């Protein structure tokens, strides 16, 4: 039995094809853009191509993410909170706490031994501390967001970024550049600021180990190190953290078929 999950996020759309052993047969990621229906169709086709499967082989398709309700060919839509919980549980069955930093929000999720959500917290004020925050800071430094992790590793001292507002933090970074601060130290400071904000939010939950992380920002090793240091605990990162929501949706579709 083959199922699929599509996660239509604020920044990127992800599709994953899964078999009954919960093995990923193929996946695809692309920017969401202005038309999330078209993007979902395209990313789904790309995932099918990579899995070398025909569309007819997909028995059930679940959608998740902000655009989940806009996809007409879905069998069901489930929130990304539930999907990330199940996606992480399928890969790290012992995980009790999940950090998910996506394009425009950060979530902390507490799960039970079956992967069911017990409690969750989510940023509700602004996008500070999310993937978007890192995009803006990278732009202010004139670099690509993918360069942040590498630069952060070269840092010899942390420069504190005190503004938590994205706009003010950007001004602060520009000022630091003008003063001649090293880009690597500024980047480390940015990671520390994001980690600080995420940790404060997470502490509204009962943070229990093991901790796992999903979402595109988990690909940034520098940020993960800052988070591990603040939480004083190691964090498990999946091989492809960006697609965990879509993977969780496909896993939930498998579970529904089995029930």
């Amino acid at each position, binding site marked *: 039995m083959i199922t699929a999950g599509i996660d239509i996020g604020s920044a990127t759309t992800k599709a994953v094809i899964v078999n009954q052993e919960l093995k990923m047969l193929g996946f695809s990621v692309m920017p969401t853009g202005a038309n999330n229906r078209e993007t979902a169709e395209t990313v789904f086709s790309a995932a099918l191509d990579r899995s070398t499967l025909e569309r007819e082989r997909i028995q059930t398709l679940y959608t998740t993410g*902000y655009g989940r*309700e806009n996809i007409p060919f*879905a*069998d*069901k*839509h*489930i*929130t*990304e*909170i*539930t999907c990330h919980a199940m996606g992480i549980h399928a890969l790290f069955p012992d995980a009790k706490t999940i950090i998910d930093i996506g394009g425009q*929000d950060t979530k902390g999720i507490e799960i039970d031994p079956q992967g*069911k*959500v*017990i*409690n*969750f917290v*989510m940023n*509700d004020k602004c996008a500070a501390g999310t993937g978007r925050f890192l995009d803006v800071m990278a732009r202010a430094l004139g670099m690509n967001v993918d360069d942040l992790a590498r630069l952060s590793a070269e840092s010899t001292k942390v420069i504190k970024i005190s503004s938590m507002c994205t706009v003010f933090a950007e001004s602060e970074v520009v000022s630091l550049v003008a003063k001649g601060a090293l880009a690597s130290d500024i980047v480390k400071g940015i990671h520390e600021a994001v980690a600080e904000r995420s940790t404060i939010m997470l502490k509204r939950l009962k943070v229990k180990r093991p901790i796992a992380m999903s979402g595109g920002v988990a690909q940034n090793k520098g940020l993960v190190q800052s988070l591990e240091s603040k939480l004083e605990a190691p964090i498990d990162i999946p091989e492809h953290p960006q697609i965990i929501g879509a993977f969780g949706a496909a896993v*939930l579709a498998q579970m*529904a078929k089995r*029930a």
Partner: protein
Amino acid sequence: MRLTPVPGEKGAAMVDALIHEIDLLNKNRWNLFKEIQKPKIGWLSIYTPEEILDAAGLLPYHITGEDRPNPQKASTYMHSNLCPYVLSSLEEVLDGVHDFAEGIIFVNACDARRRMYDVLKHFDRSRFFYILDFSKVVTINSKKYYRQQLQTFIQALEKSFHFRFSVDALHESIQSWNETRHLLCELYEYRRTGNAGMTCSQALKIVKASMSGLREAFNNKMSRLLDEIKIKSALKNPENKYRLLLCGSYFDHLDIVETIESYGAEIICENISIGLKYFEGEIDTTGDPLDALADYYLEKASCARMIDFEKRCKKILHLVEHYQIQSVFFFSLKFCDNNLLDFPLLKERLNEKGIPVFFIEAERSIENIEQIKTRIIAFLESQMGYSDANV
């Protein structure tokens, strides 16, 4: 569209038509007011003794701020980080929505209302703006003090509106308001047993209409609605849905209610100012009416501005049991310090009893509704499961 259902029309259609009629009392109130030859006076707090205003020959009505959900001008006069409900209400006044009214009555219920009174009193000296002081504690002395406040209030009304206070008129007004309270309590009892056949959105519309100032029309239509519900409830089995209690600050976010209902859950009771907090209890009609008003308004367990958290918490725990509630949804408008301080204490107490609590803090006009929808549905998925979350 026919707005007056004929007797004999069956079932839900009749109930829906009557609810629609009641809702129109609120929606059309500005036009309906033109037909009533009484001075109109607005109010902002459920602690306003409307009975005194009615006895003074005035028409008291609730200012909702709903005509101006995104205030702009109000920020010129008050900080933008104050209660969004009060800012919307001030915006309505600044935009002339309430120009027909003789004035506005305030109660010292919170800082935001107090500041709005200060602004209007300072910038508009032509109308009657009055603030009633109201204790945060309930003692024999605070009741005596409040009674004195009511007497001073009556004297101010006598002076401004040229009427002579009469105990008989006040008794009559109290009876009319008590009738509203009885009718709404009866409605909520039907909702508790699942026999009312109405949604939370409809219940909110009904309570708003009860505050619209058109009391006689409201009481008449409510009596007819309850008669229909009685007939209907005898014919149908109650629905078995996941039951939520709504608590917290001022709330009229129908899109949030629709999100909850779309998932198959139902808000069975609203312990908010356009809900139970407005109409709970009744005023004693046997003794001195001012003593009775002081007793009623001070003894209300409802608002987070009162010091006695234990009393408020006990009431919510009672509602959870009485309404067989499965989860509590606590909503707070931004910057509502009273409710934001109450929430962690209440959450702890409810969790001790095994009642899950879900919290949303938002503006009056919710621009980020998609994120809030995700949080609501994720909570319901965790409590109800996701097997029924069909497209």
